[in-house]
């Protein structure tokens, strides 16, 4: 799952990225509004986390602009401004949630998860595809009632596929989810991780669609 973090404070953004990476999220960083705007225009994210007070203005204006343009990405506001007026304004303009600094990463992650769950119309964080169940909240994967241990990248891949179960996920999407913009995308490393996943689970669960990407079989199919 890939998130966009809009935050101008370096120390804070480093900490958030590190923490969210540990929790199984790929996070891209934008330091100001224009960076965030172009990132959202050119790239796909599951969710965006916006600080409000940025060097080139207030992010509420960006939220308004995005919503006006029909952008549906869930946006969680993460700011030090705790006055009711700002909260209400941000939510009215289209933010999905509002977290006030200082905060605990656990809370931020939970709120992010809630928004992603809502966007995907899930009732809880457990995605079941046949014998496979993926618990996004506790980062656990069970196959035929057995807990499977996964590496961080394997987990990110599986989560990405599970969130879009039954649909083709492109190779680029998976790559950015794993490595982000600056990551090493040696063409075959993704395939290596997919290979390991298939080995740990049922080999037939993840199908390769040549030229398009991969697909996790939905329980119905």
């Amino acid at each position, binding site marked *: 799952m890939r998130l966009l973090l809009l935050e*101008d*404070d370096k*120390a*804070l953004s*480093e*900490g*958030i990225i*590190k*923490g969210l990476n*540990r929790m199984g999220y790929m996070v891209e960083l934008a330091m*100001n509004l224009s960076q965030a705007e172009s990132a959202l225009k050119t790239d796909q994210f599951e969710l965006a986390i916006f600080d409000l*007070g940025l*060097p*080139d203005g207030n992010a509420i204006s960006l939220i308004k602009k995005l919503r006006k343009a029909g952008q549906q990405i869930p946006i969680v506001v993460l*700011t*030090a*401004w*705790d*006055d009711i007026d700002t909260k209400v304004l941000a939510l009215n303009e289209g933010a999905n949630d509002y977290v*006030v*600094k*200082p*905060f*605990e*990463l*656990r809370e931020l992650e939970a709120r992010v998860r809630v928004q992603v769950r809502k966007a995907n119309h899930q009732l809880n964080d457990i995605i079941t595809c046949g014998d496979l169940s993926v618990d996004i909240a506790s980062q656990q994967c069970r196959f035929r009632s057995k807990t499977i241990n996964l590496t961080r990248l394997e987990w990110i891949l599986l989560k990405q596929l599970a969130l879009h179960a039954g649909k083709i996920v492109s190779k680029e999407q998976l790559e950015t989810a794993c490595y982000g913009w600056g990551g090493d995308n040696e063409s075959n490393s993704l395939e290596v991780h997919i290979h390991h996943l298939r080995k740990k689970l049922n080999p037939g669960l993840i199908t390769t669609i040549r030229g398009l990407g991969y697909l996790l079989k939905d329980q119905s199919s």
Partner: protein
Amino acid sequence: MKLWSLRRSLVIGINLAVIAVLAITAWASYRDILHELDEVFDAQLAQTAKSLAAFYTPSPETQPAPQRIPISNYYDTGEEESANERGPSGHKYESKIGYHIYNSEGKLLALTNQLQILPLKNLKPGYHTLENDAQTWFIFSYFSKSRGIWVRTFQRQDVRSELSGYLATEQLYPLLLMWVPISLIILFIVYLVLKPVNRFATHLRARALNNLSPIESDLPKELIPIKQAINKLLHQIKMFSEREKRFIADASHELRTPLSAIQVHAENIIHAKSLEDSKQSGKAIFSAVERMSHLVNQLLRLNRLDSLDKSTDFSDIELKTLVSAAINSLPTNRVGNYQWQVDVPTTKIACNETLIISALTNLLSNAMKFSSADSTIQIEAVDTSASIIIKIRDQGSGVPAEIIEQMGERFYRFREHTNIAGSGLGLSITSKIIQLHHGKLSFNNIQPSGFEVQIELPNSD
């Protein structure tokens, strides 16, 4: 001096005026009555004298002693509410009026039998007054040529004044009765007039503490200036409180961000997989703490400057000393990276040494921060008769014109400089210090590239 309430002043003042007018009216009518009575009584004295002269037949030969006309045998002992004022022998007031008849030689022929005989001598014809035994008498003397006799009629003064007193008192009652409704009307009018004032006061009292919106209630013309003054004051308080609110919001914003960084990194340390990881987080926490303490220190300084009196003790310090002290307090390892050009005349400035050095240090450190290494930083001062102007120039990229206005606002940081460390309070502190010295701080871009800060301090000479 404690002022009387408007209501009290109005009620008492108008009532006093009404009472004064009523009193003058009463006094004037008393005088009029007295005058009219005088006229009637005077005429009566004259007429009685003439009648007596006409009817009196003297028989001096047969009459060895003056003929005494008896008067009532009881005397006036004051007012008595009884019918015996009118006795069978006459009236008790008889002693207060009377007459004497003399022949032309002055021999007394007839007289009313008063308690004492009035010493009436050498009187000319006409009206006189006579003081006798603490009583004043009005006398009319008449000489009848045809009869060759003098007739003098007289009357005690208190008879007249008693009557006019009664009449005037009778007049006073309606006047007093008039005063009662008038004073009630006054009370009512004062109440009506002061009603908007009271309403205004109630309105003000009933205001919520945080309601700083202008007062809109309708007021009489006289109160409009007060309303305007209050509204102006409210507006100023509102501006001030908004500024403070914004400041507190900004301050908490600036403190919460590093606080969040500390929290997030602390969480990361707990979950760190490697020593390297936790070391990195530890370092991040350390720098966030450093940033916070810098910010807190700056806030405290600003606060201390805010509460500092304008009349802080100033002493005359050599400008060169100040500039070199400022350069000395910059980080030594960075000072060497720049070319310094100092051109300062020998002159003294009346200032608080510590504050001015810190202001200069701040401006010089900004010049270093925002220009590249090896560039030149210029410090130049001019001593004119009115002021001392200090200019600090760097060769950096300057600041867009529209931003210059906002420079010096608390927490304002130019967006392209967010990658450069700072709290956004340095210029606020500097500008506050210059203000304390009654000076001016201004900013300018210079061509082709660079930024100039100008400090203008009043010359102490």
